[in-house]
């Protein structure tokens, strides 16, 4: 139990403090102070951007382009499959813990086709509560105290607290804008290969990759993935590849799975999401796919955390996958039709933002768009909040323009917040009427 890599110094201090507090406790026998605070693993992890911003954006008078969820309907056959399932009695009881059999079979078929390799539904796949649950299971299974995990900034905000909760150290590396700050496209945001190489050392357990990328919408190219893969292989590091937006890539771009690069399958856990694939974020189903010798540890975490995911939702999802699996060579397949639908929304959103004098960064994938708001020169220095500029801007925008977005510095480590605080993130997987309402606000932006 007591291994060399444990930090004995900290343990010693903790023990002394405990003994001290207990002796105080016994000397003041009248009232015992309530000594139950949070565990060390969650120290400092209590704040969460979504808890704050979703509450504010819930005001119905605000046009909500903040949190990433569709307000468009999921495809009707997906809803119908769930309605069918609701009538089947046995599907209301526990299913297989690591994933409902019909779902893991469907996933293995779809991904065998995509990856061009055999995927065993029972050993190579784990179904989790959203991709969020996959990230948690992967990190808890494979990351621990003493490890370092490389996180590319800006990042989906949960990576940092999850790595910390596992006792490990996040090591950040920012995407940097190629054209000296004047970025028009997500492809302009790149990693410096030398800078990246310097982040790897003998303690590096994993790198977290997110492609297509939230929040920039960057779709990592083969060359960029090769740089990462080469480093993973050289340093014998794992890759946690968050590919929830895998189907949402726009014309001229291709989503490439890093696990398909030579030498990568055996060191990569690839994460996917029903919420993003089928526009059903509220179903909270995701999956981890990888080699058995990694997935088996995720399964151990899963059997000790929530054991099984809801049965009816998994069955309905399996049926939806079969429908689309059969038409994977057909342009009508939802995997492709959704991205076509979103591409026009992307283009519309970009146009509106430009007309309002804002500088959007056109994403190659995903359903977010980041925007440089510094060009508006909104003076918020009188707001004596210690928060970064983009937080203040978004709050001001919600109050005065009734439009919500998410501040980009929420997606950065503390050192890089200054670099990104002029950007905010908009979500455009919204129905026409929502975008119409946003249009009215943006067209009238300068008229107030």
């Amino acid at each position, binding site marked *: 139990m007591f291994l060399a890599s444990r930090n004995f110094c900290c343990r010693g201090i903790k023990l002394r403090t405990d003994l001290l507090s207990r002796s105080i406790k016994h000397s003041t026998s009248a009232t015992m102070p309530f000594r139950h605070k949070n565990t060390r693993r969650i120290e400092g992890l209590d704040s969460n951007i979504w808890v704050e911003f979703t509450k504010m954006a819930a005001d119905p008078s605000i046009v909500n382009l903040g949190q990433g969820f569709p307000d468009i309907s999921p495809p009707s056959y997906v809803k119908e499959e769930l309605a069918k399932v609701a009538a089947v009695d046995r599907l209301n009881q526990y299913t297989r813990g690591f994933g409902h059999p019909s779902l893991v079979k469907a996933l293995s078929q779809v991904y065998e086709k995509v990856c061009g390799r055999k995927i065993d539904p029972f050993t190579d796949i784990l179904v989790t509560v*959203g991709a969020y649950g996959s990230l948690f299971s992967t990190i808890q299974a494979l990351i621990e105290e003493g490890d370092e995990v490389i996180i590319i900034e800006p990042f989906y905000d949960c990576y940092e607290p999850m790595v910390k909760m596992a006792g490990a150290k996040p090591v950040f590396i920012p995407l940097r804008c190629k054209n000296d700050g004047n970025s028009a496209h997500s492809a302009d945001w790149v990693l410096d290969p030398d800078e990246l190489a310097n982040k790897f050392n003998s303690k590096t357990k994993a790198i977290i990759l997110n492609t297509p990328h939230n929040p920039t919408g960057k779709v990592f190219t083969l060359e960029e993935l090769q740089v990462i893969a080469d480093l993973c292989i050289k340093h*014998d590091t*794992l890759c946690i590849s968050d590919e929830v937006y895998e189907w949402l890539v726009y014309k001229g771009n291709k989503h490439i799975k890093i696990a398909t690069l030579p030498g990568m399958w055996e060191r990569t856990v690839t994460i996917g999401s029903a919420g993003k694939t089928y526009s059903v974020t509220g179903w909270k189903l995701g999956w981890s796919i990888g080699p058995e010798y990694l997935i088996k540890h995720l399964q151990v975490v899963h059997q000790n955390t*929530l054991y099984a*995911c809801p049965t009816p939702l998994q069955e309905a999802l399996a049926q939806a996958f079969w429908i689309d699996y059969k038409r994977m060579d057909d342009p009508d397949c939802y995997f492709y039709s959704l991205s076509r639908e979103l591409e026009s929304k992307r283009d519309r959103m970009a146009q509106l933002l430009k007309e309002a004098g804002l500088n959007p960064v056109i994403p190659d994938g995903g359903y977010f768009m980041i925007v440089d708001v510094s060009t508006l020169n909104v003076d918020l220095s009188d707001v004596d909040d210690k928060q970064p500029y983009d937080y203040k801007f978004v709050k001001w925008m919600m109050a005065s323009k009734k439009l919500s977005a998410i501040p980009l510095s929420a997606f950065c480590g503390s050192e890089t917040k200054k670099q990104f605080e002029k950007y905010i993130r908009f979500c455009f997987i919204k129905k026409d009427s929502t975008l119409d309402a946003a249009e009215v606000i943006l067209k009238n932006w300068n008229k107030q």
Partner: protein
Amino acid sequence: FLFHSLQAKMSRPVQARRLEGVDKNIWVEFVKLAATYSKVNLGQGFPDFPPPDFLTEALTRALGGGNHMLHQYTRAFGHPPLVKVLAQFFEKLLGRDLDPMTNVMVTVGAYQALFCCFQALVDEGDEVIIIEPFFDCYEPMVKMAGGTPVFVPLRPNPPKDGKLMSSADWQLDPVELASKFSERTKAIVLNSPNNPLGKVFSRGELGLIAELCVKHDVLCISDEVYEWLVYDGKQHIRIASLQGMWDRTVIIGSAGKTFSTTGWKVGWVVGPDRLLQHLRTVHQNSVYHCATIVQEAVAQGFQRELMLYGKPESYFVQLPKELQQKRDWLVQSLDDVGMKPIIPEGTYFVVADISQFKSDVPDVPNSDEPYDSRFAKWMVKNKGLAAIPLSAFYSEAHKNNYTNFIRFCFAKEEATLKAANDILQKWKHEKTS
């Protein structure tokens, strides 16, 4: 081959140390066995009858209602209609005001509620008292949180008149219990009604535990998933309602057990904000949201029950009535063939002593596997009847303390229980002929 190099490079294995000793899981093995061999499955605890119509109708209504936003994220700590009705319900039950936003949180089944409790409140070096026999996940969850499980057994005090034992006859020794509390004790896990025995802790027994919790400033994680399944007019008493306990107790509940819908995986915690705030932190860093639409349907189920509370049509009145009959049926079946059931006061499980059937499964000296486990495996393979060995619910060190008991689940259709009876009768006749 690179496959090996990842293993070789790490001077330690690729998996995190927190997984040490928590990889084994009885259900993975026994569920597979039941799926392969059983004709009658009284093993894993889930009903084979459907959830009540009003609940499945609520799901269908939610799906047909045209509100497609029910397919999107809801509030992370619990869908507002659900936390509101849970707060209303538990206000009634606990006799205190509850804030749905801070005193209630929804989880992915009671299982995830337990996980949040241990991760939020148990640190390395903390001790957690677990009463044996226990729902098996408590031990690995405590270990995964770096804690040390400290076990204290319920001890059987059989009635002198040779009558069948009741789960009430399994009791804690007060002195033994008190001796388990130390300066390092962070929490005690209470499960009442108790799985697997079906024991419903009395007010006196709860008072004993409460006194020790208050004296030693220890938390109570109170797993009450079977709260509605109590028989013979017994009452389920919530330890959080005892003096000094609200502030130090997290109550765990389950829609799966409450509404016979284990596959929906909706659970909850109820407790003081200063404890729940830490569970919220764990939750927001592990799963973040629970599925919306099942929460919506469960909320409607509770709204119906709130209106019908205490009335004969209430599901919480009807379900225990139906299950008591099933209990009595299975108890009779077991007793008839010479398996001695311990009559449960609650839950939908009955544990029976299979000593009289031991001749069918000879003892294997020096076997690693506890006898009852080998018996249960033999039984499902050869008789097609699935049940769970009691040793599954004991710590490693105590797995051989009670080797002759297996647990049956009676939340089953009449036809299933009848089929079980047929197997048992046939088996008995084969033995005597």
